[in-house]
């Protein structure tokens, strides 16, 4: 029993990280039809910025350090994403392949730069003692970092749903996902919504970058790329453009990975997720909760 609880919470924690990366990818794809390969770079840059901030505050209290790092990570992710959209994506309006290619180049260049600056080996991160401790839950000792990740992702999900359902810009984003041209034919500047989804997506990826650092206890330049691929899989399984779909798929993917890796063999879970993606795409090309066009 305690093993199952442990695996479930670990899987949910992993799913939470996937969701935070996937949410932005899904919104960006839904609204702009851009597969954003630079999303992993937002994650990576944010986690290194957060790490640098907490290094600079080494003498402060661990909690202050952690919260400043969190803030720095989110702001960095958001700013980097906003800037990328404004400088690289926007000039390529109407050239979709070009937009995708630019994000590929940005991803390669950024990860290389981080490697050059910080080295390619993982670096340990410091965190408050409570974070690295465990809490008892249904007889299992659950690492607190898992709980933090799950709570944060749930909060982000609620905030995003509130934004999408209850605000005018949320309305514009939802309408734009369906039919961008018609939104501008109603006199709305869709371009501003583009910038906004990049800012939101980058901030969420930045949050994921900081939480993943605490989750794994280390940061390394390659994690952004593997997160990106997992997030792609989550977004596609959930249905491109659907936030609730991404949340659902993130939970499924995280749980499937953990349970199969434990009960079958290490690696089987990762393999199964990829097969699941292929099956979903062939059976339900629009994804679990995606609108079939």
């Amino acid at each position, binding site marked *: 029993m305690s093993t199952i609880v442990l695996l479930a919470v670990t899987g949910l924690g992993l799913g939470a990280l996937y969701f935070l990366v996937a949410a932005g990818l899904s919104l960006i794809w839904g609204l702009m039809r851009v597969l954003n390969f630079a999303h992993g770079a937002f994650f990576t840059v944010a986690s290194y910025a957060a790490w640098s901030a907490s290094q600079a505050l080494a003498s402060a209290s661990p909690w202050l350090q952690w919260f400043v790092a969190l803030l720095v990570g989110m702001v960095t992710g958001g700013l980097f994403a906003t800037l990328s959209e404004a400088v690289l994506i926007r000039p390529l309006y109407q050239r979709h392949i070009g937009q995708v290619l630019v994000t590929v180049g940005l991803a390669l260049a950024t990860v290389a730069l981080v490697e050059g600056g910080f080295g390619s080996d993982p670096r340990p991160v410091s965190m408050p003692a409570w974070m690295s401790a465990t809490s008892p839950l249904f007889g299992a000792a659950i690492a607190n970092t898992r709980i933090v990740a799950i709570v944060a992702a749930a909060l982000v999900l609620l905030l995003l749903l509130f934004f999408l359902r209850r605000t005018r810009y949320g*309305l*514009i984003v*939802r309408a734009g996902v*369906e039919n961008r041209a*018609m939104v*501008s*034919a109603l*006199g709305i500047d*869709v371009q501003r919504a583009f910038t906004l989804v990049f800012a939101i997506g980058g901030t969420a990826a930045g949050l994921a970058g900081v939480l993943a650092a605490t989750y794994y206890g280390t940061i390394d330049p390659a994690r952004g790329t593997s997160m990106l691929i997992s997030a792609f899989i989550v977004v596609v399984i959930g249905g491109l453009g659907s936030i609730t779909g991404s949340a659902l798929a993130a939970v499924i993917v995280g749980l499937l990975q953990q349970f199969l890796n434990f009960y079958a063999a290490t690696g089987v879970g990762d393999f199964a997720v990829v097969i699941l993606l292929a099956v979903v795409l062939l059976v339900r090309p629009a994804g679990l909760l995606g609108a079939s066009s």
Partner: protein
Amino acid sequence: MNARAPLLELHDLRVTIGESQILQGVSFTVREGGITGLLGRNGVGKTTTLRGILGLVPRTGSVTLAQAELTALATYEIVRRGVGYVPEDRDVFAGLSVEENLRLAERPGAAHRYDLVYELFPELRERAAQRAGTLSGGQQQMVSLARALLNADNRILLIDEPTKGLAPLIVKRVADALRRAAEVATILLVEQNLAVAHRLVKDVIVLDQGRVVFSGDVEELIGDPVLARRYLGLAAAREVH
């Protein structure tokens, strides 16, 4: 008769999509007030003309609204100058509720004619919370018309085949709504249903193969069987004889 001031003017509008030139230099003037019909057979470029006015397709030439040049503006800026659009396929946002569809169309800073909209289409108030995608075709058309009618500062409405595929009863209601709408804004109407067009329209512009081939009074067009047959197809000719 033609003393009304010119409102919308197109000059040498050209649109090329892929390798085919859809519009080969379209020029015409829509005068203020009433409904102007934009007619022609299928595929002669009527829809493209409306999309070209709005900048939804890349085009050359010039479009002016009350002497103000629109050509260089982005679509949303053109619309904000007072252009309402009811597209051919209605293009309601299927995942949004009826109320959200209308709220999205509200232009900040303009007065919103919810009174008029709900008077013409009371079912939109009843179905406010319903997803637009689950409405019938006629109701979707009402949402689409309502979005254009809503903003009181709209000077011209571009309406593309509003009766297409609708039941006769709904066609009549749409036609009534267009007549009411014409009291508050100028309308440029693309309409295949000649019976409807004939009743609503006074000035007509006829397109053929991406060019304007006739521009004048609707009676003059219908009264000329050769013109009507050549540019509007057999149905029109049969109707006249």
